[in-house]
């Protein structure tokens, strides 16, 4: 076994929403790790469960959602078993999360300065005046001009970009060990985006902060991330270091994301559109979630993709992991993969599953 220092490990995490239409498997068996001092980029189409995964880490998923299974280990401590009184000391302090939609993530009836100050009041026990002063410093640090005056603004008086910086200031306030940034630069223009990324990188270097960077922007991933996790329909489908993901993506979905045929030195800025739609996450079958949209499945004439759920397993000897039947065998169905790595999967099967080849 490799000996790496993981600040965060997610094991078989399942977070479901129990709605009138059925169980929405928003997060359905996610395995991930974030190495200390590194940045993990998380990419995937809208609705694939990126946000819910990391909200689950902080135990912020509310009704009708619930973590039904799995384990989250932060600094060797299992977060899902922690009493709420200890959990509040981790949130905003050791692990901070910056949410999408900055304007609606700020409370409309409080001044933004006070909202940032609240972090210092909560975790450092500063009085309001001291806390506001620290908040103003934080706001200046994330590049808000005239921070003292802007601290007096209400969220609706700010642009999306300004509000996003307030969120970032709030997230960085306690210099957390782990920062989860959920599309933090989407609302910003390019120069400010660059400033924010620089700021994060500087903090990462200076205090050894680890970062989870959720984004749609593969350019940002290439720039920021050390490792990359690709998510599809509530599951991680590929995980590897940033060089490998651009050089040799294995899973057909990842290849699609990167534009089918990756061209060396050319990095696509936006997710390429892949034919078909994101699957319905209500009571999904025990099969590859990507099967209906997968060209490789058709090309190789694979039937197993719709009968058994592929598992996230290594390909080759590296830390490269893929969830795809192109690379793993399935002895119980007498299946041998076209690009077999010699690694076998023991998956959940559809009731109708029959041995593929005799």
């Amino acid at each position: 076994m490799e000996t790496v220092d993981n600040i965060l490990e997610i094991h078989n995490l399942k977070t479901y929403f129990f709605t009138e239409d059925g169980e929405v498997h928003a997060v359905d068996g996610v395995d991930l790790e974030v190495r200390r001092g590194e940045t993990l980029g998380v990419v995937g189409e809208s609705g694939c469960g990126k946000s819910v995964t990391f909200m689950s880490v902080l135990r912020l998923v509310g009704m009708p959602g619930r973590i039904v299974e799995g384990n989250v280990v932060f600094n060797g401590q299992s977060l899902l078993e922690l009493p709420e009184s200890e959990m509040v000391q981790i949130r905003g302090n050791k692990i901070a999360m910056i949410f999408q939609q900055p304007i609606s993530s700020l409370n409309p009836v409080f001044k933004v300065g006070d909202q940032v100050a609240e972090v210092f009041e909560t975790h450092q026990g500063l009085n309001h005046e001291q806390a506001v002063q620290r908040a103003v410093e934080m706001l200046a640090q994330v590049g808000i001009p005239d921070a003292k005056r802007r601290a007096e603004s209400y969220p609706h008086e700010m642009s999306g970009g300004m509000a996003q910086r307030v969120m970032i200031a709030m997230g960085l306030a306690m210099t957390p060990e782990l920062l989860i940034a959920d599309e933090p630069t989407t609302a910003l223009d390019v120069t400010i985006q660059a400033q924010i990324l620089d700021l994060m990188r500087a903090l990462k270097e200076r205090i050894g902060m680890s970062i989870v960077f959720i984004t749609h922007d593969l350019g940002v991933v290439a720039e920021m991330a050390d490792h990359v996790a690709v998510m599809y329909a509530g599951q991680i489908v590929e995980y590897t270091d940033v060089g490998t993901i651009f050089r040799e993506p294995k899973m057909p979905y990842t290849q699609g994301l990167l534009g089918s045929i990756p061209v060396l030195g050319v990095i696509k800025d936006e997710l390429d559109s892949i034919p078909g739609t994101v699957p319905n996450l209500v009571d999904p079958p025990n099969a590859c979630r990507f099967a209906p949209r997968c060209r490789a499945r058709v090309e190789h004439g694979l039937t197993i993709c719709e009968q058994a759920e592929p598992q996230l397993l290594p390909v080759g000897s590296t830390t490269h992991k893929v969830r795809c039947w192109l690379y793993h065998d399935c002895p119980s169905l007498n299946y041998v993969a076209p690009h077999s790595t010699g690694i076998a999967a023991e998956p959940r099967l559809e009731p109708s599953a029959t041995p593929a080849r005799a």
Partner: protein
Amino acid sequence: MGTYLVRRFLQLAVVILLATMVIYALLNAVPGGPLSGVRQELINTRGATGANVASDMARLQRDFDLDLPVWQSYLRWLIGWPKLADRPNRGGILFGDLGDSWQVARGQSVASLIQSRLGNTLLLMTSATLLSLLVAIPIGINAAVRQYSAFDYLATTGAFFGTAMPVFWFGMMMIMIFAYYFKQLGWFYLPTGNAVALRPYDVPFLGTVLPETILDRGLHLVLPTIVLSLLYMAAWSRYTRTSMLEVLRQDYVRTARAKGLVERLVISKHALRNALIPLVTIIALQIPGLFGGAILTETVFNWPGMGRLYISGLNAGDWPLVMSLLFITAVLTVVSNLLADVMYTFVDPRIRLS
């Protein structure tokens, strides 16, 4: 804000003017004419062909301007113009002259009638409103925070009970139990009927209660306040619950949790502050009710308040009284609507008057 208020005041004036027209039209829409009640009474006491019925009616018609063209009598009622040499001058309702009562207290001014009742109604309505808010808001919040819990179901059931319960039935049950049976059993009981007692009475634990003391008034207030509050509590706890549930789904509540705030603060600071904003409307729109009173509750408890005054006026065909009460309610309603809008700007920084 200045120009906004000017515009709103102009709107308000137009609405009140329209309201006076409707109110005055009501007078003339009474079946058998506005004086039918008075005539019936004359006939009852003197017989159909009794002495002077016809001439008395003619005199009353003149006294109340009912023989004038409608526009003249309306304007005299509204602003006291045009002045007519052979008739008494009127001040006009817009300038505070509510006229004299025809029936309920013949010859007495409507203003003095209202004065004698207003205190009782303000007392009952204010205590019921405050009690209801104090109980309903915490219930609503807790029901929302613990949605689908036993507490939530209990609160829901209680609210259905409160809404569905006819006030006259519930009021009478309360009187029977707490005023009648408790007294029979020699237990502590609550006096009912009227707002004060006429003569001293004995209550266990309290001894002799003298009429018109604060204690006497307080004891009389308890039952009607409870009965009336149940109704408001039912509605307002539901309202608070809905509002709170809406707020709890918002992104900023999640942000507050993500900061590491303890749940108690997330609720009491971040969520509550937002959830209470819509309650401003409820509180503002309660203002006309504070003056108008509660008709059913006042009737059941024989409470000498505005609600009962209104009903007596309607029953007796005392139109100056009824029209005055309707007018006051109309003015208070539009004013409290404006007040609600102004209050919003204080509680919600997103709202600016413009």
